[in-house]
């Protein structure tokens, strides 16, 4: 089936053929023909954001909460460069996106034309792949290839840079019949010999632990279900990275909580002391491993990853398995059932006893207050009051993000959207807009800080325009809390530029946008205020005034190992002289 149409029309047709329902964008000179094509159709819904970075984060929130590819449309020059932070974010967190950027007409490329920039050059390092379309004949193939590359293998963002003259040109649109790519064919099925060896290693383990990551979420709900099955078959403890939260239910007694820099005591010690580590879709990020030469010193490691470059990058794997999590987990479950291995039961129960001992430390304990709202308490109440609903949570970046990861419990995958690898302040509100669009009847909450929220605040206007009743829950401590925490720990409490001065009145601000503002500074009123927020069917900014000096614990200080974590001084571990435990070398680290 082929039809003659303009390049701009081909863009819309290809999106339709890919099943795209919503796109996030911002018009400009170099994409006007595409916007004209949008005007002439009603199958694809365009969401007008207020900043191109917001468009990309919204597409990320949409993609991560729905499992579909997020689509972005921006203009050339500043449109493209504003999108770069979002693209880098999607690259680090493996989010499938297709970002179409306008470009000046082909005959002007290289002439420093108005709003010209080298988009493919600039985005080469922060996209999985990118294209500059030089002829109308290539356009249909490139558009469909972009979706294939974005969503197959390890997902990621793909940029299609489309010069304006090509948008006007007439050409023949053909929908490709095969989605086989000439060169890019990632391995999805794991090597069976290695999977058998992995199952054997697991069967003989005395102190095993599952270390699961965002790859399980990216692999789809089926992978999460298989992970649960395998975990329950084996009875092994399960930890998760920040990106993997929800793939395994937080309420399950086999779940030890998040692992890493602000992970739980039991998770990190289990990682440190285990003899077999089963990494499913995680990448041994430095936030997880801490000091590499002291990382999990007694373990044999199985590493399942769809990206061969993740294998042996930071930590050597004894059994590397390249493949998609769902495929490999399916094989593991099947072989486990077939072989019905005899576990070393006394060793495993001794291991669980040890873990229960660590759990008893109650590392997430904190001293609550009747006078000021403790941020941990605020998240706990938010969780308790929303847990019976279909709830999607996004965050900004900082202390509030870590508290949300620690105290908000996720039972399902795709419910938790956060900027993990890139650590982008400003991610949460636009991501919430995208998630709300994908799930119009769900409760979508952006857990934010008063500093982060100001980076993408303009997207409140988008939420209002499209009746997306997102809830922005600000833990307002009038500090860039994580910066302040590090300055306290590492720089003698010299709070250089980490104080949030001249803050807006968030209640009035919400009202100025046409939303609802709620402020709460009294623990006694907190529940009622949260309920009011939940029951408001419009965008809300909730200004939760919290303790200004609370720090985020547990914490593995930079340059330290998993068994050298700091706990809350309430638990009697660290005390006030916390800075002295981080040596000079640690201060160099991020």
């Amino acid at each position: 089936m082929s039809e003659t149409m303009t390049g701009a029309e081909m863009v819309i047709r290809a999106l339709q053929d890919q099943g795209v329902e919503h796109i996030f964008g911002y018009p400009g000179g170099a994409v006007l023909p595409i916007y004209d094509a949008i005007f002439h159709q009603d199958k694809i819904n365009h969401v007008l954001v207020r900043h191109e970075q917001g468009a990309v984060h919204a597409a990320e929130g949409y993609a991560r909460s729905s499992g579909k590819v997020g689509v972005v449309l921006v203009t050339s020059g500043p449109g493209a460069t504003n999108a770069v932070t979002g693209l880098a974010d999607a690259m680090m967190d493996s989010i499938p996106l297709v970002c179409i950027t306008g470009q000046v007409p082909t005959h002007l490329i290289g002439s420093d034309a108005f709003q010209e920039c080298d988009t493919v050059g600039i985005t080469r390092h922060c996209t999985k792949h990118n294209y500059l379309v030089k002829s109308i004949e290539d356009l249909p193939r490139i558009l469909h290839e972009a979706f294939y590359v974005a969503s197959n293998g390890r997902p990621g963002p793909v940029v299609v840079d489309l010069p304006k003259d090509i948008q006007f040109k007439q050409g023949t649109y053909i929908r490709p019949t095969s989605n086989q790519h000439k060169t890019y064919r990632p391995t999805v099925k794991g090597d069976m010999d290695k999977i058998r060896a992995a199952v054997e290693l697991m069967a003989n383990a005395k102190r095993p632990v599952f270390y699961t990551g965002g790859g399980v979420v990216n692999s789809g709900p089926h992978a999460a279900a298989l992970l649960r099955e395998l975990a329950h078959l084996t009875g092994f403890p399960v930890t998760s990275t920040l990106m993997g939260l929800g793939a395994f239910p937080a309420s399950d007694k086999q779940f030890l909580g998040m692992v890493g820099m602000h992970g739980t005591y039991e998770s990190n010690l289990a990682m440190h002391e285990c003899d077999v580590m089963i990494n499913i879709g995680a990448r041994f990020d430095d936030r997880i491993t801490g000091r590499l030469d002291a990382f999990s010193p007694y373990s044999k490691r199985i590493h399942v990853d769809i990206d061969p470059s993740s294998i042996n990058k930071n930590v050597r794997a004894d059994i590397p398995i390249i493949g998609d999590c769902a495929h490999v987990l399916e094989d593991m479950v099947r072989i486990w059932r077939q072989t019905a291995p005899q576990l070393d039961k006394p060793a495993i129960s001794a291991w669980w006893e040890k873990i229960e001992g660590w759990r008893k430390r109650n590392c997430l304990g904190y001293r609550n207050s009747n006078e000021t709202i403790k941020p941990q308490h605020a998240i706990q109440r938010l969780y308790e009051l929303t847990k019976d609903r279909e709830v999607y949570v996004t965050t900004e970046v900082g202390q509030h993000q870590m508290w949300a990861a620690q105290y908000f419990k996720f039972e399902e995958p795709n419910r938790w959207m956060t900027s993990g690898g890139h650590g982008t302040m400003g991610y949460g509100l636009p991501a919430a807009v995208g998630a709300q669009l994908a799930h119009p009847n769900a409760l979508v909450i952006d857990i934010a800080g008063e500093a982060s929220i100001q980076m993408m605040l303009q997207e409140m206007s988008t939420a209002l325009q499209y009746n997306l009743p997102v809830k922005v829950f600000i833990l307002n401590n009038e500090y860039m809390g994580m910066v302040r925490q590090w300055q306290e720990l590492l720089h003698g409490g010299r709070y250089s530029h980490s104080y949030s001065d001249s803050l807006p009145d968030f209640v009035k601000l919400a009202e100025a946008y046409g939303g609802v503002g709620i402020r709460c500074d009294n623990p006694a009123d907190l529940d009622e205020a949260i309920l009011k927020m939940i029951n408001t069917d419009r965008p809300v900014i909730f200004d939760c005034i919290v303790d200004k000096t609370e720090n985020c614990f547990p914490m593995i200080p930079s340059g330290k190992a998993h068994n050298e974590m700091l706990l809350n001084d309430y638990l009697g571990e660290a005390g006030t002289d916390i800075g002295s435990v981080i040596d000079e070398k640690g201060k160099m680290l991020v």
Partner: protein
Amino acid sequence: MSQMSTHYPDPTRVEPVNRHTLAIVVDNEPGVLARISGMFSGRGYNIESLTVTETEHEAHVSRITIVTTGTDTIIEQIKSQLDRLVPVHYVADLTLLGDAVERELCLVKVVGKGDHRVEAMRLAAAFGARTLDATLTSFVYELTGTTEEVERFIKLMTAVGLVEVSRTGVAAMARGAEGIIP
């Protein structure tokens, strides 16, 4: 405070650094070289030499030969990172495939009179270099050989009036009947 370059956990193993020659078969599309060289610079890997040209015109396929150095872990990482680039068809580590044939071509211009000129001619003859251009005061020689031979030739020519060098970098191929693409 001496570890200013270490932003993240310190390197944990001290491994020997080896020289590897990689052959990379890619689609000859715009920007493919920038993708490859950008991956090296972006991730802090070395390129000692890089040669590229289209080898199959109908299929628009190019073969890139890169000489790089790194520990075994780094070399493995370089290959994985190359392999996951979308336009890359195939990556072969010629060093691991055995004693690969490696050659490069250099052009040298020497200027001089008298004894220097005579000595330059003798050296060129000894190395089997071809004379591509000659004037009363200069020669342009072409030498094809291993990197070591080319280095030696250039070093000797420096003493007899070398003014300019142009080198292609290494082109390489595994020995034996097998091609690199399985």
